[in-house]
């Protein structure tokens, strides 16, 4: 409590009294245009501009004067705090600006000459002045340091006091009297109100209010106000730290982006530099492969070629990814046919799907424009990657690609490819991360299924470059659907009809397949070519349809028959059609699978109109149907490729290993191949075949199953094991056997054979088989 008031303080109070004690002046202060600190309590009833009430003429009592003053002071404090709370300065993260705003507003509201903010130094042995506001000079200074050892009582009080240190007479107060000689007397400071600044329960600094002149009695309201200002300092410090952290994060992010760009550019450049010599290494290894080598040398060279191929493929992936990430990948803009592109992608994957016994099909909706403009190579890359993944992660069931107009985009040329498999699926929490580079759904995946995890990432980037995206819907253990959308342009002459499509108007066709999507594909494709198409999903239904159509006088012209169906297979239906007494039998085209080389052979044997190897491709279907119709009309077929019963045979050479114990059959096969460029090695039993395989290099192995010493199944297993151990690519093995029982066939495929051929082997069947494999080795 101050014992004597200095003249300035007294004068100010008198001035205030003169100005504010009359109710009229209070009203004026509370009216519009007065500073906020001067406004009266808004709960007081009043009407601006209305006549003053009678009691305004009465003199105020001392009690009411105190209340009015307190109200004024509180309002002033509240307004200052409100102003600070709204102020950008406090929350800006700029600590200097924030502290200046606090000392300025606080000093004015508390009516003290000096308000300062001090923070403990790290060693907590001193405090440092961050800002001092002097009311009369309107100036801010900073930088002074006070050491604890010189003012022990004050520092102790700071640590121990719960509330603000309210030193009404600072020169006598035991907590502050240490400052008297060096500080209080020279600066004429009479009272101090110091509020500790706390963070997380710890005192980190102090907000000091210094009254110049005599002592001053600090009210509880003033103490509270000082404490509130100290809290405001805490908020400002936190905002500053937040800004500092954000800045650090931004800098780190910018640095990371720069580093990533530099990395991508480096990788792109390095990959290119590596690829050039790699091509030379692989090329020379290929040349060396065709020279005379002993078995040991050939074995080493095989490792070089395989490792070289894998490395080149990886480098190409990295090159693609880094090009995309560095923004260097530019897409071609050329005309292409979507249907052709899909056929090519399917063809590449057909062998792999066949080997795993998977149904692979592609359904291209009729409303999807096919004459498009874009980058066919990159689109092909995406489709091969997505289809390849689907096949890779599916052990049983099917992989189906549906191509539709993107339903979510109104622009013409927006196409959606949805690839659905019945494979292992993707766990829900990894549906996003599988698109990251070098990431697969499980770490065990790469061990089990191989791969770097780059393909999906590249495909996603490519789809984005094409104005689309890739997303996945999946159920673990049930399968996945990958949706890829792209935005392409449509060729201006795209309204022209498909020139290669056969004209089937007036023809009636029956499609028979137990795999529903194949029926949909056949029905839609053939209908779009003008045919009237019926479908049947099993043999007896097919025979009923054929009989009914014939009875109605509208027999089918063509029947497309799936070779393998439960209950009644395609050949049984074909035989029944051929032996039926009715006139005008339909042309029969078989839907075969590469896995069953027999199916193709049987098509020849039965003299049917042709065959299609699944998955069904539009171009193959078009050719096969056209050739079959031409043949029926007596027009000689024009050799175009697969589908006709006399496909062209490749002239390039295959190296074949024949494992066969019968010398007569060895001689027969050798005779078959005498006039072809293919080379053949003989093995009298399975053991010799395995030994020759280890030391030689073969494109294809013909494996008799029943042999002495080691049978064909054991030899095949040994070869597959050897390939796995050595990391060699799998060689095609075709089982030769007279057995046709289902259980026996299952054993053959389980052992690792890729296809099955029934003895006796016809020359044409064998040459077709070699031709087909030759074609595949080149794709």
């Amino acid at each position: 409590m101050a014992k004597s008031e200095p003249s300035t303080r007294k004068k100010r109070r008198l001035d205030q009294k003169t100005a504010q004690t009359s109710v009229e002046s209070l009203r004026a202060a509370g009216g519009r245009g007065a500073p906020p600190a001067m406004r009266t309590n808004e709960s007081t009833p009043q009407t601006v501009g209305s006549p003053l009430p009678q009691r305004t003429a009465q003199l105020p009592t001392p009690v009411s004067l105190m209340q009015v003053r307190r109200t004024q002071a509180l309002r002033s404090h509240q307004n200052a705090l409100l102003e600070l709370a709204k102020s950008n300065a406090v929350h800006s993260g700029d600590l200097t600006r924030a502290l200046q705003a606090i000392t300025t507003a606080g000093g004015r509201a508390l009516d003290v000459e000096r308000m300062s903010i001090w923070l403990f130094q790290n060693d907590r042995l001193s405090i440092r002045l961050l800002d001092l506001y002097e009311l009369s000079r309107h100036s801010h200074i900073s930088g002074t340091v006070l050491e604890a050892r010189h003012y022990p009582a004050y520092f102790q009080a700071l640590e121990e006091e719960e509330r603000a240190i309210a030193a009404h007479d600072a020169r006598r107060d035991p907590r502050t009297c240490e400052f008297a000689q060096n500080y209080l007397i020279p600066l004429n400071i009479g009272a101090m109100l110091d509020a500790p600044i706390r963070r997380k329960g710890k005192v980190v600094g102090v907000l000091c209010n210094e009254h110049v002149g005599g002592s001053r009695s600090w009210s509880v309201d003033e103490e509270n106000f000082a404490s509130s200002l100290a809290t405001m300092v805490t908020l400002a410090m936190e905002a500053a730290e937040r800004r500092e952290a954000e800045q650090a994060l931004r800098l780190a992010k910018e640095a990371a982006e720069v580093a990533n760009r530099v990395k991508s550019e480096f990788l792109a450049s390095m990959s290119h530099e590596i690829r050039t010599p790699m091509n030379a290494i692989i090329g020379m290894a290929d040349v060396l492969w065709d020279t005379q080598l002993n078995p040991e040398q050939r074995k080493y060279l095989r490792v070089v070629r395989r490792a070289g191929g894998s490395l080149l493929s990886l480098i190409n992936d990295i090159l693609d990814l880094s090009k995309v990430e560095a923004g260097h990948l530019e897409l071609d803009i050329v005309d292409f046919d979507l249907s052709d592109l899909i056929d090519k992608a399917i063809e590449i994957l057909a062998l792999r799907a066949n080997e795993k016994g998977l149904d692979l099909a592609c359904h291209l909706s009729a409303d999807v424009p096919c004459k498009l403009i874009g980058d066919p190579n990159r689109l092909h890359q995406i489709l091969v990657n997505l289809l390849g993944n689907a096949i890779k992660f599916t052990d049983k069931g099917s992989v189906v690609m549906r191509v539709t107009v993107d339903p979510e985009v109104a622009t013409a040329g927006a196409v959606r490819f949805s690839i659905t498999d019945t494979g292992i699926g993707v766990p829900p929490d990894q549906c996003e991360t599988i698109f990251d580079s070098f990431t697969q759904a499980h770490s065990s995946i790469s061990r089990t299924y191989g791969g770097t995890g780059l393909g999906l990432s590249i495909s996603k980037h490519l789809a984005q470059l094409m104005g689309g995206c890739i997303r996945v819907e999946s159920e673990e253990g049930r399968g996945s659907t990958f949706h890829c959308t792209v935005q392409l342009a449509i060729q201006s002459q795209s309204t022209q009809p498909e020139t290669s499509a056969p004209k089937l108007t007036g023809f009636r066709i029956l499609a028979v397949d137990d795999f529903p999507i194949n029926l949909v594909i056949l029905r839609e494709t053939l209908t779009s070519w003008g045919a009237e198409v019926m479908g049947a999903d099993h043999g007896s239904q097919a025979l009923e349809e054929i009989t009914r159509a014939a009875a109605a006088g509208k027999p089918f012209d063509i029947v497309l028959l799936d070779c393998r169906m439960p209950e009644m297979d395609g050949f049984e239906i074909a035989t029944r059609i051929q032996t039926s007494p009715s006139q005008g039998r339909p042309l029969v085209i078989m839907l075969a699978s590469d896995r069953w080389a027999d199916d193709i052979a049987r098509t020849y044997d039965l003299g049917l109109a042709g065959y299609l190897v699944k998955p069904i491709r539009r171009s193959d279907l078009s050719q096969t149907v056209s050739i079959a119709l031409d043949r029926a009309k007596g027009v000689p077929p024009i050799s175009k490729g697969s589908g006709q019963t006399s496909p062209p045979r490749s002239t390039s050479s295959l190296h074949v290993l024949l494992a066969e114990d019968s010398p007569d059959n060895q001689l027969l096969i050798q005779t078959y191949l005498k006039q072809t460029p293919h080379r053949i090695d003989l093995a009298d039993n399975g053991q010799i075949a395995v030994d020759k395989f280890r030391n030689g290099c073969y494109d294809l192995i013909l494996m008799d199953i029943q042999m002495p010493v080691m049978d064909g199944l054991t030899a095949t297993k040994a070869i597959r094991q050897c390939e796995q151990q050595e990391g060699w690519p799998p060689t095609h093995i075709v089982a030769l056997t007279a057995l046709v029982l289902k259980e026996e066939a299952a054993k053959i495929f389980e052992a690792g054979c890729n296809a099955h051929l029934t003895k006796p082997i016809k020359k044409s069947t064998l040459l077709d088989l070699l031709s087909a494999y030759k074609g595949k080795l080149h794709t």
Partner: protein
Amino acid sequence: MTTIKGADAQSRITVYLDPDLEDIVPGFLENRRKDVDTITGCVEKNDLETIRILGHRMKGDGGGYGFESISAIGEVLEQAALRRDHATIRERTSELSSFLRRVEVVYKR
């Protein structure tokens, strides 16, 4: 393509084959004649496993050379050996021997 003319035991059986096989067919038929002797010996020694193997080979090879009858005989021999059916083995061996005596090959495209 195989065409059997006449059904009596003495008539010739003419088989039309691809000329590409002209070099190897005589050897194939000669080997079957040796098989007849081998099987006859095996029956006496009760070596049914050898008969089964020879029957199996005939079944696989005959059709490839164009002799469907040899394939058919081979299949029965293989099964008979598995059943230890000596009577059928003797019967089919005799049938094979008869076929080999009467067969006449014509090479024709």
